[in-house]
């Protein structure tokens, strides 16, 4: 809270009439209001008052708690006296100049996690996000977590299932905040529906699910990394796909697993464009069984309601689906975020989101490789900027380009320390043009180090041409988790036709590591949804009697009106954690009879 804002609040508090019950308090005004001490008043007496403060209090059946200088006093009200009545009574006393509630200002709950100051989504003070895209920021555009954390930080009573690319449950900022499925036969905190085993580690080292999980429930206030919306959580890790996505079959299975094993909230940071009856049936079953499904609006910048570009599960009509658009640091709708005045329910932060990553990302600049034959370190212009590349022949970048040598058997390799990792994957882009089925580009791996084509094993061969288009490669490095794992390329040719050859760009190795302390900045409606899922868990933990519909209402009605969401979402609101905790449903079932 800025000091100017605090001053305005104080001025309003001292001279405003006592709060009356309004038809509908503005969510944000209520969210920012401090809580009055229920049985105390601050009273300022007139200078010329003949009766002393104690006498005035006594006449009204109260007592002087303590004097604050000559004319101010804290009055302790008689037990049970309503604050509003007392305010009016004191105001009516001729000796009283002003009276106000004695507000309780509390220290905000700020976790000690070292990366917390970069989590603008949780508390936006206009900070830049290291590793993110520089962006304008409007302080206060956030989930208002610190005020919410004053009330509750522990969501362990609510299981949240993360249906995603897997979760590194050994990440130092997630271990301890995962569902314990030991009794049910799932000791590794979930299931892998892609590989059909009980280990939901991201075997392809794709960190999406880990990032999502930590947004919901990275261990908070542990002096490590980031803080989740929930400082304590029970996250059920359900791996439904790899980096390429997930299928209906795996989603359906995982939803059944989640429901069967007690998840109250399902996070689905994904989507597709086809109406899918099996998926919808499972969402409907979740609704019948009281499970909330939080999902992403999609990243095409499109209108999900226009009929031309539907997006599921966001567009499913079930009211247990909370579809989330992404907001940026100024609470504008993110440029990529889909929207929909019917299908998209709320907004939440989704740009420059820092969260956990399953392991290190070793970006290699393709320098320092052991090279034979025509392999050359080069910097080539790809019309997208000049990038370091490993090329064969050396003239690959030249205009016009040259051709690789006949009878080549050229290798290039490098050693990487992969000791102790659980999974690892090399990814890069290749440009390839060789004589089809005769000249080959090969990849090889050696856990013992050295030339992997001599000491290790060849894991792939490619031939032919994809023209000038780059092909993204993703190579599993399983079996090479040593301190000197070598990965290499080999260009083999025969004596006949030679073509343009090979360029390798953007080489990196992603790992999954026990006790990982890695973090990454991502953006997307995928990142917005888990903020909402986390707040939903917090609300549900705070109100254990709630139904999914109550949680949904708290998320929406307790939200913060945001101009960028007006007309583009059903509620026009961004989820606000404190507002959601403050939310109270209008009483129902009112009946009256004359006695």
């Amino acid at each position: 809270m800025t000091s100017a804002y605090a001053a305005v609040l104080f001025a309003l508090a001292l001279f405003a009439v006592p709060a009356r019950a309004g038809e509908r308090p503005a969510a944000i005004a209520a969210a920012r209001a401090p809580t009055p001490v229920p049985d105390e008043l601050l009273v300022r007496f007139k200078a010329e008052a003949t009766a002393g403060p104690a006498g005035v209090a006594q006449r009204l059946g109260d007592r002087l708690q303590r004097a604050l200088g000559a004319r101010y006093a804290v009055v302790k009200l008689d037990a049970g006296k309503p604050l509003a009545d007392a305010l009016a009574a004191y105001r009516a006393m001729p000796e009283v100049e002003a009276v106000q509630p004695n507000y309780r200002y509390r220290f905000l709950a700020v976790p000690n996690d070292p990366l917390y100051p970069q989590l603008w989504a949780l508390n936006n003070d206009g900070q830049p996000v290291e590793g993110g895209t520089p962006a304008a920021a409007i302080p206060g555009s956030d989930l208002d977590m610190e005020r919410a954390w004053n009330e509750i930080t522990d969501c362990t009573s609510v299981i949240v299932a993360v249906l995603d690319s897997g979760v590194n449950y050994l990440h130092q900022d997630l271990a301890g905040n995962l569902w314990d499925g030991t009794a049910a036969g799932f000791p590794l905190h979930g299931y892998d529906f892609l590989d059909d085993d009980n280990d939901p580690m991201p075997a392809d080292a794709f960190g999406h699910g880990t990032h999502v999980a930590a947004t919901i429930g990275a261990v908070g206030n542990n002096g490590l990394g980031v803080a989740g919306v929930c400082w304590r959580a029970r996250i059920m890790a359900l791996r439904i796909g790899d980096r390429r996505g997930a299928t209906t079959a795996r989603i359906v299975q995982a939803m059944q697993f989640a429901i069967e094993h007690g998840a109250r909230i399902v996070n689905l940071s994904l989507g597709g464009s086809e109406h899918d009856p099996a998926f919808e049936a499972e969402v409907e079953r979740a609704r019948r069984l009281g499970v909330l499904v939080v999902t992403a609006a999609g990243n095409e910048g499109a209108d999900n309601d226009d009929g031309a570009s539907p997006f599921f599960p966001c567009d499913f009509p079930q009211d247990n689906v909370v579809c989330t658009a992404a907001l940026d640091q100024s609470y504008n709708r993110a440029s990529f975020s889909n929207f929909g005045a019917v299908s998209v329910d709320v907004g939440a932060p989704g740009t420059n989101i820092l969260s956990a990553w399953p392991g290190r990302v070793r970006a290699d600049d393709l320098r320092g490789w052991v090279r034979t034959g025509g392999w050359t370190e080069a910097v080539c212009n790809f019309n997208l900027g000049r990038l370091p590349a490993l090329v064969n022949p050396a003239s690959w970048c030249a205009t016009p380009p040259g051709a690789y040598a006949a009878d080549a058997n050229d290798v290039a390799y490098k050693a990487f320390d992969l000791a102790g990792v659980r999974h690892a994957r090399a990814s890069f882009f290749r440009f390839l043009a060789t004589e089809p089925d005769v000249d080959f580009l090969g990849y090889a791996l050696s856990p013992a180090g050295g030339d992997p084509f001599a000491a290790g094993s060849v894991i792939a061969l490619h031939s032919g041409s994809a023209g000038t288009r780059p092909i993204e490669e993703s190579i599993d490095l399983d079996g090479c988790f040593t301190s000197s794992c070598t990965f290499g390329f080999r260009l083999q040719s025969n004596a006949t036709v030679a073509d343009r050859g090979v360029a390798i760009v953007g080489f990196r190795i992603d790992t999954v590591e026990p006790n990982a302390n890695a973090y990454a900045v991502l953006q997307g409606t995928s990142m917005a949804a888990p903020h909402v899922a986390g707040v939903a868990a917090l609300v549900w933990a705070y109100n254990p009697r709630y139904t999914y519909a109550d949680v949904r209402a708290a998320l929406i009605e307790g939200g913060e009106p945001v101009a960028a969401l007006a007309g583009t979402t059903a509620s026009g609101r961004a989820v606000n954690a404190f507002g959601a905790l403050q939310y109270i449903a209008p009483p129902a079932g009112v009946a009256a009879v004359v006695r």
Partner: protein
Amino acid sequence: MIRHARTGSAFAAEATIRFCRGAALAGLCAGLWALAACGSGEAGTAERPAAEPTQIRYVEVSWDPNRESGVNRAGGGYRVYHGTTPGFSLGGARFVDVPYAGGETTPTRALLALAPGTHYIKVVAYSALNPAGSAPSAEVAITVPAAPEVFVRVQHD
């Protein structure tokens, strides 16, 4: 202000019920009900009821319990507003406060002392975190008939 505890009644364990602007009603049920002026910022200005005291009838209002924890613990409760025009505004309206009084849930019944005529009632739930309270419930209407005249035979020994 007169404050009494109604002991031995079905409501005693559920609520301390305060009638707003109803101090003059105290004579009707002295010894039974806790009556105190409250709400509307005009506490202490005991207001005479519109009708003669003998015309006042009790209306029991009930509602479903709210599921918010904050409503069902210290600092939480309900306010039962009533007015004589449909769609009445809560600002300045009379209400009965039904605060949390211990136990699992806050009471969900209140007695209103109302004059003959049609009254409109809506309930607001509140908590320590949200003292302003919820949006009001749907409004219900109740018509209080005039009380029948009662003849009392006085016997002289």
